[in-house]
């Protein structure tokens, strides 16, 4: 029979790619569950490594400090002088006055301290510096 063959081959092909689909599904589920989808930062920031064990909670307010000292709040660049006023406005009426600072590891420590000081001046109770966990040696 000339046309019997292709009809019978289709389920065979399906059977052959089944393991592939299984693996792809597993990978898909792994990436969906294990990875976190987060907004990418407008500037590239390599956080400093630390041995801290504390994990960050919800990061509602986040101040970014770029390697060259530029500040970003909520995705847009902001001058150092405006930071306190802007933060105070955002924090008004919020219960947990916690601000996370994501600074680049190569940023000048004094710049970061100046920013921390400004954040404190805005009435923030807790300032947390985000770091990335140092891999096990």
């Amino acid at each position: 029979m000339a046309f019997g063959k292709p009809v019978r081959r289709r389920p065979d092909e399906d059977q052959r790619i089944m393991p592939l689909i299984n693996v792809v599904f597993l990978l898909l589920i792994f990436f969906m569950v294990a990875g976190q989808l987060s907004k990418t930062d407008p500037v590239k920031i390599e956080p400093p490594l630390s041995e801290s064990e504390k994990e960050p909670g919800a990061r509602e307010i986040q101040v970014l400090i770029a390697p060259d000292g530029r500040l970003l709040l909520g995705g847009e660049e902001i001058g150092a002088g405006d930071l306190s006023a802007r933060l105070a406005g955002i924090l008004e009426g919020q219960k947990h006055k916690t601000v996370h600072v994501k600074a680049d590891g190569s940023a000048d420590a004094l710049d970061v301290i100046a920013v921390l000081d400004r954040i404190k001046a805005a009435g923030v109770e807790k300032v947390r510096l985000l770091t990335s966990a140092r891999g096990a040696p």
Partner: protein
Amino acid sequence: MRRRAIISMTPLIDVVFILLVFFMLASSFMDWRTIELGVARAGGSGAMKGAMLVELRGDELRLSGRTVSETDLMRTLSARFEKDPAQKVLLKPEAGVPLQRAIDLIDRLAAAGGRDVSFVSAPEAR
């Protein structure tokens, strides 16, 4: 009896592959940690009282104004922390010191038992 596929597999695989690629590119596996930081105001008297000042220079460390090696610093401070776990330590980096170095020092102070480590803001930064 062979199970018959009701829909063709190819579009399904296409979609799954696209989803897979999306999740691979979009998800991050960064292991975030936090350090809670205090900032003491230079010139203010209350917070500075009884605290030990560690200055972080370009290539040296200073403890209360004296240049010390890192092992000496850790030894001195460990002894202090043992006597008084609430001993305050103030960290003052010099201009140009990268944040990573300051964090490394905070890590080591925490490992030595320091619980109250904070930065000092330079008065001219305000």
